């Protein structure tokens, strides 16, 4: 866990890609879940944030 946090602080690709992937996955689940409308409403923002973040952080050093 401390390795993950220090990776985030030192702007390393692995942990940041993990965060972006979690955001994308969360956004897609929110988009397609059948339970609450507000999650569907906010899903696009979450997916877009994750996708843009993924594009940026994939250029970070290993």
């Amino acid at each position: 866990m401390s390795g993950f946090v220090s990776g985030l602080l030192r702007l390393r690709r692995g942990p940041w890609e993990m965060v972006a992937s979690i955001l994308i996955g969360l956004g897609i689940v929110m988009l397609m879940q059948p339970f609450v409308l507000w999650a569907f409403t906010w899903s696009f923002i979450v997916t877009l944030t994750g996708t843009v973040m993924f594009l940026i952080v994939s250029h970070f050093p290993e």
Partner: protein
Amino acid sequence: MTDSTLDRVARATPPRVARRIRGLSDRAIAWIFVAPTIILLLAVNIFPLIWTIYLSFTNYRANRPNAEVEWVGLRNYQRILSDPEIWQTMQATAHFLFWTLFFQVLIGFALAWLINQKFRGNNLWTTIIVLPMMLSPAVVGNFWTFLYQPQIGIFNNIISFFSGADPTSFSMIGDVRLAPWSIVIVDTWMWTPFVMLICLAGLRSIPDSIYEAAECDRASKWRQFWTITVPMVLPFLMLAVLFRGIENFKMFDLVVQLTGGGPGSTTELTSINLKREAFEKWRTGYASAYAVILFVTVFGLASIYVKALNRVKNR
């Protein structure tokens, strides 16, 4: 002395052109070769994407090209993301996506494993299994509507043979509970061979020596399957899931032919709904925002998958 092709081409090149080419660097010549492809990609892919993003912020209607286009900001996105009907189509798509991937991976892998066993008529069976994939989705959708007919359809009669139910007592494409499953069955029937072929390529890439070494170590068949076969086929399987996932997220033709999105809107997938907004209601700006949402979703999904694929490949 015989002339090589290179000599003949060099002689046929007009002197002015030859002089001009001789003066170019390798980098410039490389750009000359690559430029047509880049220009084509920009014209066919990138420009429409940018134009769609622009239209998504307007109230443009393609059936009223002379009407004044108004900048509406994020209003299209707000309306789409708070519309219960679109939410409903997303759920229909999720149901279709999840179950088709589940069945295709399960059956596709099982078939690949069976085909990979050496037996007589192996190649003939591969060809027969692959046949559905070669048909046009429109044709498949059309003839499955006949197979699903309650009175004369083979599908209903087979179900009736095994369950004892009256074949006319249920309609696969007319019942709101069964219609979502009817499209899952047809897509699985059509595209399982694709997953099977990719898995088969994975299975055939595993060297026999690994299994022989496992035999020497007295590993059981079950253990060999979980520690050799599955990990080595996994990158191929993930590739198949990526391809099918993206394709099924955009699924249109097969479902339109089969159910037309009905009954009601139970099988109206996002792409069918998008087409209705764009070319039946002619709300081009609104449909563009809808398309951008779907694009970002698929792009995000593909990013995760490519990353996962690389990780599995590097293991």
